[in-house]
């Protein structure tokens, strides 16, 4: 029976199918908001689904001189890595499906794998534009990863636990702490924007500079998978931020029972969707507002402002935790 439920969790909910559906839905929300902010109509809701199906049906070309194994399997590894953290993030109750002691660190680690995958792809493509794109992705990694980790960890420091579920529970019980973590929220949001390689940080696939960037040599199914990695990265990334920084205000800690049925999971799940949609909207707004930074400017910005802010946030968290527990 456990096996049955395990497969169900993996494939249906909150695993593959759920993430697939939500990733494509979030992509649509992002594209639509982006378009409306630019005076455009934007795509219809089925467009991301249609794009995916079309790409899956297209010819899959593997260039002659690529490193075949790396070229073929890196997308799958990135795909698996980016999906896994969803099992550690609380979606409908304060407890995630498979909470671990230290799953916050695990999620941060797994979420950085797609960027490394892009570097490997750039390397294995043996082509100029992917190579430059891959180098850029790897260079950028040092810029955004540090502030992202610092701010996410400050959530853990405040709650006194490295488990995402514990952090959410703590936030739900002490909503005021969220204000303390507000700078961290902004920094994590910008770092996530960079992590997902969206404008103004879309440097590794800057169209007007290096054409398709890292994914220039990809086509068909593999390209579809890499696009899904982006979409699912958006879902998982925004869920993680929602769980750590927006846990408190919008989370029912007590159970809500109405005529014999417990509605708490349902309401909490809806709240989770609202929170992550809110984050996607903010991400789309950032994408609309700014011109793409150059790689040196991006690193400059991350180290000067984001990393410093992240350290400051960690310091605040440590002081708070020390005052509370110490």
């Amino acid at each position, binding site marked *: 029976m456990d096996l049955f439920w395990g497969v169900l969790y993996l494939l249906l909910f909150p695993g593959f199918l759920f993430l697939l559906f939500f990733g494509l839905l979030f992509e649509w929300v992002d594209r639509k908001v982006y378009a409306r*902010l*630019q*005076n*455009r109509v934007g795509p219809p809701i089925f467009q991301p689904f249609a794009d995916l199906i079309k790409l899956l049906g297209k010819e899959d070309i593997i260039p002659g001189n690529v490193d075949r194994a790396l070229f073929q399997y890196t997308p799958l590894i990135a795909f698996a890595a980016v999906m896994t953290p969803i099992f550690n993030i609380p979606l409908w109750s304060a407890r995630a499906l498979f909470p671990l002691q230290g799953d916050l660190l695990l999620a941060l680690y797994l979420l950085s794998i797609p960027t490394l995958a892009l570097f490997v792809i750039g390397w294995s493509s043996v082509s*100029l*534009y992917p190579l*430059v794109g891959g180098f850029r992705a790897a260079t950028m990694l040092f810029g955004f990863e540090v502030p992202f980790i610092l701010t996410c960890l400050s959530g853990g420091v405040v709650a006194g636990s490295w488990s995402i579920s514990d952090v959410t529970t703590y936030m739900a019980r002490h909503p005021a702490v969220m204000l303390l973590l507000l700078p961290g929220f902004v920094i994590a949001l910008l770092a996530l924007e960079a992590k997902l390689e969206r*404008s*103004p940080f*879309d*440097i590794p696939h*800057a*169209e*007007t*500079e*290096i*054409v398709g960037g890292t994914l220039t040599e990809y086509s068909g199914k593999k390209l579809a998978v890499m696009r899904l990695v982006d979409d699912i990265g958006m879902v998982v990334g925004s869920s993680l931020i929602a769980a750590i920084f927006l846990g408190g205000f919008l989370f029912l800690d007590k159970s809500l029972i109405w005529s014999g049925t417990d509605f708490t999971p349902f309401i909490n799940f809806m709240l989770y969707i609202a929170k992550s949609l809110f984050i996607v909207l903010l991400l789309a707004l950032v994408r*609309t*507002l*700014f*011109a*793409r*930074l*150059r*790689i*040196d*400017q991006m690193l400059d910005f991350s180290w000067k402002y984001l990393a410093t802010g992240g350290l400051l946030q960690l310091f605040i968290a440590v002081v708070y935790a020390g005052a509370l527990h110490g």
Partner: protein
Amino acid sequence: MKESIVIPIGPQHPCFKEPMRLDISVDGERVVDADIIISFNHRGVEKATEARTYIQNLYLMERVCGICSHSHATCYCQGVEEILGLEIPERARYIRSFIGELERIQSHLFWIGIAGHEIGWDTLLMYTWKDRERVNDMLEQISGNRIHYAMNTIGGVRRDIREEDRESLKRGLEFLEERAAYYVHVITEEETFLKRTRGIANLPTELAKQLCAVGPTLRGSNVKMDVRADDPYAAYEDLDFSVVTTDTCDVWGRGFVKASEILQSIRMCNQVLEELPGGDIRVKAPAKVPAGEAVSRYEAPRGELIHYIKSNGSNMPERIKIRAPTLANWLVMSEMLKGVYLADVAIVTDAIDPCLCCSARVTITDRSRGERRVTTLDALRRRRDGRTGVA
């Protein structure tokens, strides 16, 4: 030893709207050297003019370029009128200026959008291009066409600005003025735009003069030079405007000049609508042009445009030579590209607002010997008739 990779940009590349190629040698992200290869789009317009009558050439001239169609047609007409000794009516002069300025507005709005796209800011592209629709609509209202207005003829213009259009044109100009002022504000204030354009691709005043830059590229390097002011044609002698220059000498300066020129153009258009003199819009011109030659200058949106026309007494020209502004700006571009980041190549290239269809030349590349030379049409004919082999 420093190793550099050569990154080919073009002939087909998202950063160019027309085919051209840049061989960029990069050391990491820095551009060490840039090799500009143009002429993927040679159409032989100059030669084609020699087999057409002066009236037929009007249509050909208009199609030298899509964005500055009025510039080429006006420049050509001015040249032919000079040989004929034809004085065109006052009203025609004003209408030529009016259309010319509307064209400048749409061309500069077009540029701001493309510049936004080059630095990954598509929002700016969508905004400016939406507003550009309004100018195109106004041009359509007057001429019946959005791009190729076909307003010019030898001896004047073909269509009048009607009294009943005056109000809606004024409203359109009002709208554009508001938007243009907003874009000047955006360009001067928006932090990421400044980050990507300020201090990039410096072109000192002296170098700009030495390499004969033209148009906004030159004025962005603080040289006050504009054919409209220096050698007025059409109605510019009677119109009030100031030549915009900046002393920043960078990509931002070139952009700022273009955005500010929109405001100047709107000022001139309003003045034309106020002071448009009455009378005929054209005089009759003879079909045959006496032998002679003329050089005609025109300030196109991208800079000084020169047409040289030589007639031989028949109804077809002997020779027409077009010096498009982009051709004059290639030299400074290759200079500007040195030392910038790879990421800046797109915006630096775009800063001169290259218009390739105007400036294509035939270049032969010999891969085996690694040399490149410009060829003549005769040599091309010989090659067609004789052996092939040189790629």
